[in-house]
């Protein structure tokens, strides 16, 4: 009978855990939008954190019109998104910066870049008493991150901000410690304009930050948190982080010579200014785009899909979802601080989506029905 006692001890442990979790409110049956409906198609995506709010909105809205397709998107970072689609642990990846040629070469079949929305990287800072937005040039931002501009009242900064009462304090620059699409866009913007920055730091998801200058933080929230907490600091974050938290953002000087704000219109302007230059594979940097109002630290964000889908049903569902996203889905962009694709880019994306095949058969026969 001791055996029974033994088993009952184990059972008690298990039961206890169950009760523990049940008490905390976990229902043992699914809710309306949750239950693992039989036959529902499952699509898994992961990658860039920047488009997470809009992708979450999309998959949620799409499920309302297509209850038979259940799409899950998890933000793990752009690099992780590229890695996941390359190792095929997901059905689609997501990345802010286009994949490099050498990484694309690792794919065992053709990977396509589908731009979905546009966003901006903004400079945010912690300066009490400076009420009007700071005005920054690429040269000065590079100077700060290279450790050449050390004080807030440096003549180079005061020249562009004559009205602001910039303090005689050390500047504390904050950058991303992890590999990040945001960093790729930010350093791409600086490297294109400032040769010294290109040589010393370079443009990549995780560049060679100058030792002894500033601090690295993991993820956007890390940078935002540190800037918010630390007087006299400056950092770069995705626009949604700044807008959602009412952080100050700097006006950035674009190649046309204007200090522009990171608004949806100005990001769209950057996209429109470079749409004609878009290459066939749609991988393009739109930092420092032409145009009077173009915000210079703008970028597309991409979904990565294989051109040839192994599973025809899944491939079709994925292509249909992406078609829906760039058409019907674009209406949700502005509320979440993204700029929708310009019309001519939507046309290019349509061509791409139509070219998705499975075993040689086109999957999108009747798009936009």
């Amino acid at each position, binding site marked *: 009978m001791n055996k029974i006692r033994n088993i009952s001890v184990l059972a008690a442990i298990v039961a206890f855990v169950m009760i523990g979790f049940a008490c905390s409110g976990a229902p043992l049956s699914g809710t309306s939008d949750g239950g693992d409906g039989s036959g529902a198609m499952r699509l898994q995506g992961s990658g860039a954190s920047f488009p997470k709010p809009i992708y979450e909105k999309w998959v949620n809205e799409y499920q309302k019109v297509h209850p038979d397709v259940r799409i899950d998107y998890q933000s*793990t*970072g*752009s*690099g*992780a998104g*590229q*890695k996941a689609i*390359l190792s095929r642990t997901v059905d689609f990846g997501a990345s802010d910066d286009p994949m490099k040629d050498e*990484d694309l070469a690792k794919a065992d079949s053709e990977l396509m870049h589908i731009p979905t929305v546009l966003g901006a990287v903004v400079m945010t800072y912690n300066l009490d008493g400076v009420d009007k937005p700071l005005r920054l040039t690429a040269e000065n931002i590079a100077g700060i991150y290279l450790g050449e501009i050390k004080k807030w009242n440096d003549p180079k900064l005061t020249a562009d901000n004559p009205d602001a009462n910039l303090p005689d304090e*050390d500047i*504390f620059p904050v950058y991303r*410690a*992890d*590999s*990040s699409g945001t960093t790729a866009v930010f350093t791409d913007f600086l490297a294109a304009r400032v040769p010294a920055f290109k040589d010393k730091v*370079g443009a*990549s*998801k*995780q*560049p*060679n*930050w100058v*030792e*002894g200058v*500033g*601090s*690295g*933080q*993991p993820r956007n929230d*890390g940078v935002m*948190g*540190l800037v918010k*907490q*630390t007087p006299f*600091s400056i950092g770069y974050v995705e626009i949604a982080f700044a807008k959602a938290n009412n952080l100050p953002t700097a006006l950035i000087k674009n190649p046309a010579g204007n200090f522009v704000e990171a608004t949806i219109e100005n990001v769209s302007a950057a996209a429109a200014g470079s749409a004609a230059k878009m290459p066939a594979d749609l991988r393009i940097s739109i930092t420092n785009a032409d145009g009077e109002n173009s915000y210079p630290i703008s970028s597309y964000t991409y979904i990565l899909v294989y051109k040839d889908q192994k599973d025809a049903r899944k491939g079709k569902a994925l292509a249909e979802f992406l078609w829906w996203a760039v058409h019907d889905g674009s209406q949700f962009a502005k509320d979440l601080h993204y700029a929708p694709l310009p019309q001519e880019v939507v046309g290019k994306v349509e061509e791409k989506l139509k070219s998705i095949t499975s075993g040689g058969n086109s999957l999108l026969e009747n798009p936009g029905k």
Partner: protein
Amino acid sequence: MAKTGTFADSLFKGILTVFAGTIILVVIAMIVMMFWNSLPTIKEFGLGFLIGSDWQPASDVYGALPFIYGTIVSSVIALILAVPVSLGIAIFLVEQAPRSIASPIAFMVELLAAIPSVVYGLWGIFVLAPFIRNYLGPFLQDYLGWLPLFQGRLTGIGMLTGGVIMAIMVTPIITAVVRDVLEVVPTSQRDAALALGATKWETTLIVLENASSGIAGAVVLGLGRALGETMAVTMVIGNAPQISASLFEPAYTIASVLAANFAEATDRLYLSALIEMGLVLFLVTFVVNAAAKVLVMGVAKGTNAARQA
């Protein structure tokens, strides 16, 4: 063993052996996996990996020294802060406090170990970092500012903050082990000391002396925990691969560079460099634990012998 060796007996023993062997298998598999995956950097850099101080994934230059430095220094800070407090708590609980209040206090201290690491990290950013920036940091600079350790900019994020968070996290572990060690010191020793006219405090000192290698073991065990602490430290240490004399400057640890970058690393050499650091950390924990074990066992053996005598 009783000599009723039946088939059932050997079957029983066999099954248990398999279960026990699983643990050996897991550890061996982990070492093999990590060694295999870090071969590219081992071949490329050899020992230079461990002493190189440049970490530039963008140009495929990997030197692990800043991470090793950060891991060791932050752990040492943690121990400097945690050991005296843990000793104090353990002495209070075993030697001084009446049982009725000792056990609830012991329990509450142990609850500190039950709080998840990610929670410490959040708390560290919102409460500890501002506290260090606004109060502790300026205080240290006012009184000890002539030391290079306490010079430089105060952001609240950096080596010291990482060390303090670790200290809070290892205190319950060190306390628990020291308490166990003190409890195995025979009462007869205390009685003897008191009988010879020693004060209560002198008696405690004698007890501490007899338990010293066990206490050292507890400290080393705490060190092992601190070395591997991940989430909380990543959130407050600043994550800059640099070697700086100032404790207020950002630093980086092996565990936090793994946490921040493993998911994102696509490049083969980069991935290999990260996993090799994981391997280094694994081997260090291995050695540290072995040391702790030898030390703690010293006390246990000694007291057993004393009991039999």
